């Protein structure tokens, strides 16, 4: 890992309003999770299924807001290199385009990891303190869900950095971001095979809880599928960024 390049990416985030977009992501997910809890009169705060309501709210909220906001974060961090021909500048200072993309992923990935964990912890805290759910929270399932969502978020982020770097017109990246949102939301109603076909579909495989007839129930997380996605994405990201290294800047 090229630490100075990653630190440089953080320096470039000045004026990019990463904090504002991150805050929007966290607030939207926390609000949707709490909405799932308070909007349903069947939810009993003395029963452990109340936690499932929060998990179900987050399972809907994350696919709804993450794909497009991740596309925006990746696009803004990458588009600046097209605007100021940063690719050439960095290449002549010894940092290849592929290396630059990897540095961007490390920097933004860290931001996304913090955001994903913070939104999950905030919902947990809100469930305990604001809503006052009495039974203990299913911490193991909660942690597994957060990890799965984080993995899918990072895969989508990596893909968007590559798209924004490859295609100068950011319309393509943002258009794919909007279509990704639709895929992420609608995959929940499709058979699991269809959800495996695109990175966004994996949001529905990380569905932690759902409303079933009269109450919220826990759903098993598709750990093997998400692990496989992460591995394939890591491999592809490495291959693509090393291909970028061999291009003329």
């Amino acid at each position, binding site marked *: 890992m090229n630490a100075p390049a990653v630190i440089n990416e953080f320096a470039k985030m000045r004026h990019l*309003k990463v904090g504002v*977009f991150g805050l*929007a992501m966290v607030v*939207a997910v926390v*609000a949707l999770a709490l909405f799932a809890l308070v909007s349903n009169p069947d939810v009993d705060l003395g029963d452990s299924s109340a936690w499932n309501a929060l998990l179900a709210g987050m399972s809907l909220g994350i696919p709804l*807001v993450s794909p*497009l*906001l991740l*596309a*925006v974060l990746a*696009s*803004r961090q990458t*588009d600046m290199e097209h605007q100021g021909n940063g690719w050439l500048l960095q290449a002549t200072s010894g940092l290849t385009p592929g290396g630059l993309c990897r540095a961007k992923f490390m920097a933004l990935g860290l931001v996304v990891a913090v955001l994903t964990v913070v939104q999950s912890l905030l919902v947990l805290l809100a469930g305990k303190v604001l809503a006052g759910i009495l039974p203990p929270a299913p911490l193991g399932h909660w942690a597994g869900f957060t990890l799965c969502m984080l993995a899918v978020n990072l895969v989508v982020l990596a893909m968007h950095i590559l798209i924004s770097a490859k295609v100068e*017109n*950011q*319309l*393509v*990246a*943002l*258009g794919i*971001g*909007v*279509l990704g*949102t*639709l*895929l992420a*939301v*609608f995959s929940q*109603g*499709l*058979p699991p095979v*269809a959800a495996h076909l695109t990175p966004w579909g994996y949001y529905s495989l990380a569905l932690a809880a759902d409303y079933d007839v009269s109450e919220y129930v826990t759903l098993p997380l598709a750990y093997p599928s998400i692990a496989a996605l992460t591995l394939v994405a890591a491999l592809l990201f490495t291959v693509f960024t090393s291909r970028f290294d061999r291009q003329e800047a």
Partner: protein
Amino acid sequence: MGAFNAELLKLKRSLSWPVVVLLPVSLVLMGAATQLAQGGQPDDGWHTVWVQSVGFYGLFPLATGIAIIGSLVWRCEHRGSNWNALMSGPTPTLHIVVAKGLVIAGLTAIMQVVLLISVILMGKLGFGLPGMLPGQYVGITVLLALMALPIAFLQSALSMLIRSFAAPIAVALVASGISVVALNVVGDAALASPYALVTRTALLGTGTFSDPGSVTAGDLIPILAAAVFLVLALVVASTVILERRDTRV
């Protein structure tokens, strides 16, 4: 008219068609996918097909689609020395603002036509529904094309002020989310937001969220009044702001 023709020329090879065609088509396909996967006809015929696609479309995909078109239309002005050419040209500011807004609204109107055709094709070919889409929904499509005018002018203003392609799209997503909540909480008072205006229009007759299910003059008057006021206010504000902008070195 000259400014408008110039804008049309700039649209050539600008990749606006993927947004205009792909977004509504994929939305109708994904909205119907769950039903198609289960087999059988939708319970409430044409009404269900409409609600599944257009009901969701109005919540945020429409606003983000318009935002993408807005960023696309302004993209060329922020590149190279085009901003200075725009500032130093003889075209009156009002003409520039109106031409940009109308081009965005025009592309949005084509998007609504594609949506309508997609819904009809899905009902006929996908589900084999008898009869035709009720005339009420054709009327709503026309109304939706007109009610997109305020949001077109607002996104045009945002893309005029923000040089980043992605940022106005994130603004549209977040503002749509807030507007949906506002519509549910404060009702028609939320129509002060152009995002709430398109959501309210898309939901007309669907009976979902804040919509009562039937379309009456009482529903339409506030929508039309808000649209006229918003367009006038946005055109004046954008013109005043752009008039005070200068060349960039």
